[in-house]
């Protein structure tokens, strides 16, 4: 899989807040079919990096290319339409809507006719069917009618992934999808991600090292805003530098 053209390519990305350099000339790419994990100690700048790629924060310098196209001038929504999918560190689904309602929201974004003003969404088969399919894929079809507020933490994480996947993105940014899942939840979610990667490559930010070493095809280590090491799981585990700056402090 080595030399396919990258789907997402970040080069020279920099961001500073006053004296603090949050992102320092970061180069990073994600190739078709891979899970590329980004790890680093707390405060390394992982979330800032994701926020810049997703369009929440403007970078000071550098480029972000999605499928070869420069996207850094685009809004969050425009990047999403261009094929950048994302899940959040803090689960963010619409709690007032049911699981199905949330999934339909994701589907309607992709379907034409987003501006339906009259037809009842709840009776719209063009929304329901793909939304149910998205839920089924993440084992949520049995919970479709449950309000998101009443779903368990793990189910909300799954729902969030289902919504992101329903957009059929070119690439997915996953910000700590395992957080708060507990030992019983990490395994099933890892299986799901493994099954998804052939179709949608991912940038995985995660603190659960076992999951990272199991899932990641490549790992980049971020410290103080810079990529200090990149390699396979085995190389990262063997690296004295990584152990010193990261594993040693963990």
């Amino acid at each position: 899989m080595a030399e396919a053209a990258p789907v997402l390519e970040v080069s020279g990305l920099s961001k500073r807040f006053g004296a603090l350099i949050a992102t320092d000339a970061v180069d990073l790419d994600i190739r078709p079919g891979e899970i590329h994990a980004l790890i680093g100690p707390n405060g390394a700048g992982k979330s800032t990096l994701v926020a810049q790629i997703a369009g929440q924060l403007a970078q000071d310098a550098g480029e972000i290319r999605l499928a070869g196209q420069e996207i850094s001038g685009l809004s969050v929504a425009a990047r999403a339409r261009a094929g950048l999918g994302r899940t959040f560190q803090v689960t963010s689904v619409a709690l007032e809507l049911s699981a199905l309602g949330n999934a339909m929201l994701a589907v309607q974004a992709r379907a034409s006719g987003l501006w339906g003003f009259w037809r009842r969404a709840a009776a719209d088969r063009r929304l329901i069917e793909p939304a149910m399919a998205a839920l089924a894929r993440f084992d949520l079809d049995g919970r479709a009618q449950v309000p998101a507020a009443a779903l368990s933490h793990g189910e909300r994480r799954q729902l969030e992934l289902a919504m992101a996947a329903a957009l059929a993105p070119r690439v997915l940014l996953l910000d700590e999808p395992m957080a708060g899942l507990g030992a019983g939840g990490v395994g099933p979610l890892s299986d799901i991600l493994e099954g998804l990667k052939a179709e949608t490559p991912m940038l995985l930010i995660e603190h659960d090292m076992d999951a990272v070493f199991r899932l990641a095809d490549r790992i980049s280590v971020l410290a103080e805003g810079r990529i200090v090491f990149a390699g396979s799981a085995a190389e990262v585990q063997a690296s004295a530098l990584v152990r010193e700056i990261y594993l040693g402090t963990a």
Partner: protein
Amino acid sequence: MAEAAAEIAAPARRRLPEWAVNAAIAAALLAWPLLADAAGEPWWAGLAAKAAILALAGVGLNLALGYGGMVSLGHAAFFGIGGYVAAISADAAFSGAGVLGLPGSDRMLPIWLAAMALSALVALGIGAISLRTEGVYFIMITLAFAQMIYYLAISWPAYGGEDGMPIYLRNGFPGMDTNAPLDFALVCLGALAAALLLSWRLTEARFGRALICARMNPLRLATLGMEPFPVKLAAFVISAAITGLAGALYADLNGYVSPAMLGWHTSGEIIVFVILGGTGRLFGPVAGAVLYVWLETLLGGVTVHWQMGLGLVLLGVVLFGRGGLIGLLCGARRHG
């Protein structure tokens, strides 16, 4: 989130289904002027018209505030614009002079159309600027824009300035004698029913789902590829048009318009209708406006200081009775 948590934690209390409560409110509101008329009490039929009009203003605001989370403290602007359109149009029809090259009209339907169009247009401008901000800034900016229009009405002499202007003859509606309190009340209820239908379909449609998400989590909506801004702006504009329609009817109800319709107290009162009844509930503003009109009538019959009673009731609802009347009867809200 707190609301949702409360819903989970709440003990299983017996709640009425919302549709049944809504149907009961609708039936009571329709029966009110009919019974008043049958009993030979035209004043009470007129009061029903007032309740329907205020409810209509609230239905408009509810779209922005309840579903879209836009706390507009400036909806009096649209209420007043609707009122002034009705009065100016009737005046121009009466004198045959016309306004800005357009002929005046003393028919309700063209007046409503103009009132809604102008309210929507002004809302497009106000919304485009105000929605760049959020939170407290949004509240204050909508307030300030409404004040701008208020002071314009006060100092512009052509339309009565501080005194406002009269509507000598209530504008007409096909097939109705609008001067008869019952007929006028039915016209107002018809307009309210149409607005409720529109509001229901909008909020159940794709647009409404997107609006709910834009309120709860705009970043989430953007991540799904939808810009929150145009969704919210569209809701704000439609909301303003409905409140503008209410203003046109209110002018006809009273037979005059005055800058007070544009004042910020009016904006506050429209919010009060929505809150007393229940924010983001289809019939919330209807229940709230009816409650308000009854409070005004009953307390006002006892003391000239009835506004103190209103203030205490409102304070009680805010501090202890979140969810308003509909929330009390039906429990916390939920969408598909």
